[in-house]
């Protein structure tokens, strides 16, 4: 909190000093997208000489709070629609942000997937394997990580199908899954560290993009990626922060930055970093990297994010019940 307020104060102090504010924008993004946007920004700056794109990373909800409290981010690239909606409520982002850019303002998508140790010694193939007594599962606390919220929802979606909507059995399944988690980190990257560096757990659940990034970073021969039979479509919403760009006069640059994400060059960088993209040509090029998977949507299974928030993630909701009975 303190550091956020301080960062906000500093940003406010420094803003008038920068020679030409509109040459520079800040992208506030989620925890595990550091490498992705480093790569994207490099390409973007190469195509637009003289501009600077600064990055800020942290839990997506934390970033939203920081903006509400004064962090001057021109654009947000989040992993959760709800966190953009918080900015809408705060008057920072326009109501119809979803129609400002194609595909629900989500230039790429991913899904919760599994990363297992080399050779998959525990034979983990699908969600049902995660509740076995001999399997330890790593994912961060869904309360503090958007990434893990998708994991929780994907597992719930699987269980709803498998048990044909028998709520008691779904709850039991989720309860068992959470009992198999030995360490709850607060963010996606910390969970990765626990699994990779501390060698704890048999399977890490995180976005497919992150599983591909880990395999690339730490050696393809150390880990295997397992894509389950069914998973949840994870959209990565982008939006212009109107209040900030209007103040700083950076709307044009902010817009061209987000447009770039939809361009063939942008989509290629996104795909290279393990994200699935909608551009048909780019998708075709990277087809071999992304196994086919049946994706269900938040709207179809849960009836939308508002309902999810009140039913599952609010204080005293379903998730709290699961955590409280561990």
């Amino acid at each position: 909190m303190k550091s956020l307020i301080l960062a906000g104060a500093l940003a406010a102090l420094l803003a008038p000093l920068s020679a030409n504010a509109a040459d520079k924008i800040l992208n506030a993004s989620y925890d595990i997208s550091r490498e992705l946007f480093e790569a994207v920004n490099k390409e973007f700056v190469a195509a637009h000489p003289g501009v600077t794109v600064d990055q800020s990373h942290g839990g997506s909800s934390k970033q939203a709070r920081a903006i509400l409290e004064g962090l001057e981010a021109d654009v947000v690239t989040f992993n959760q629609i709800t966190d953009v909606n918080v900015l809408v409520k705060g008057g920072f982002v326009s109501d119809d942000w979803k129609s400002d850019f194609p595909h629900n303002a989500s230039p790429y998508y991913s899904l919760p997937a599994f990363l297992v140790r080399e050779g998959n010694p525990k034979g983990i193939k699908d969600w049902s394997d995660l509740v076995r007594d001999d399997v330890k599962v790593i994912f961060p606390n869904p309360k503090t990580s958007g990434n893990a919220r998708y994991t929780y929802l994907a597992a719930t979606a699987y269980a709803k199908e498998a048990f044909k909507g028998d709520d008691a059995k779904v709850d039991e399944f989720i309860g068992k899954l959470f009992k198999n988690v030995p360490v709850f980190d607060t963010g996606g990257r910390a969970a990765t560290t626990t699994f990779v560096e501390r060698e704890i757990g048999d399977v890490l659940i995180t976005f497919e993009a992150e599983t591909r990034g880990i395999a690339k970073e730490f050696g393809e021969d150390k880990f295997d990626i397992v894509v389950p039979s069914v998973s949840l479509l994870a959209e990565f919403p982008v939006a212009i922060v109107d209040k900030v760009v209007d103040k700083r006069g950076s709307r044009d640059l902010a817009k061209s930055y987000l447009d770039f994400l939809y361009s063939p060059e942008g989509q290629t960088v996104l795909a290279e970093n393990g994200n699935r993209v909608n551009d048909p040509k780019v998708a075709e090029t990277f087809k071999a990297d992304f196994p086919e998977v049946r994706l269900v949507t938040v709207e179809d299974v849960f009836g939308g994010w508002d309902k999810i928030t009140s039913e599952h993630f609010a204080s005293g909701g379903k998730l709290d019940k699961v955590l409280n009975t561990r």
Partner: protein
Amino acid sequence: MARRVLPGLPLSLGITLVYVCLIVALPLGALVFKAASLGPEAYWEIVSSDRALASYRVTVLCAFAATVFNLVFGFALAWVLVRYRFPGRRLIDALVDLPFALPTAVAGIALTTLFAQNGWFGAALAGVGIKVAYTPLGIIVAMAFTSLPFIVRTVQPVLEELDPALEEAAQSLGGSDGSIFVRVILPLLAPAILAGVSLSFARSLGEFGAIIFIAGNQPFETEITALLTFIRLEEYDYQAAAAIASVLLITAFVMLAVTNLLQARALRYTVKA
């Protein structure tokens, strides 16, 4: 006190008061205000939920253990640094302050790396069946690390000022080493030790950055109160976050007030003696 050495007391007092109000009282006041906006019933329900109670238990017990640990080793460290001259003394003296300078998250990650099952210490300890990382022991280690300097730095100067004549006098009167320590040295150091202990404990109660990496963060087992506050913030539930934080705040405040009181009594006793 007839003539003040430094002029400008009203000015400096004014600056101090404004500073304390702006930097300390205002944020804390805002916190209390936020929590108070809940109404007594809702407040009580939040701060007395099972999960919150478990987090207080974990936090307070671990802070207590860390403080006891620091009391023993911090005192020993201060004693050695003051009473002995050995090569590397200045280096150790400087190292004591390192936990203050190091970002706590860095400390947490470093400690986790060392104490995880595949870390240097963790692997050795696993051999004898002790797990530190991702257990309450890990929380204690992190708390002890970040609050060590308090006890050393409060005891050290008082120990330096301690008149050797007192010990010599006790010796010449036939006191044994043990009784000199307990009956002469310890009472003189008591106020400083008390101050160090209370600061160390208060710091441990509030520590967050170092702990979340090593704790495992399992509700009811290794979830500290500061993390629960953070979780409520992530739900955009500012009021509940403020309510839980206020419990920590009140605990720390009451404890510091009590130690101040005890200290005042101890000082009076020392002066009379």
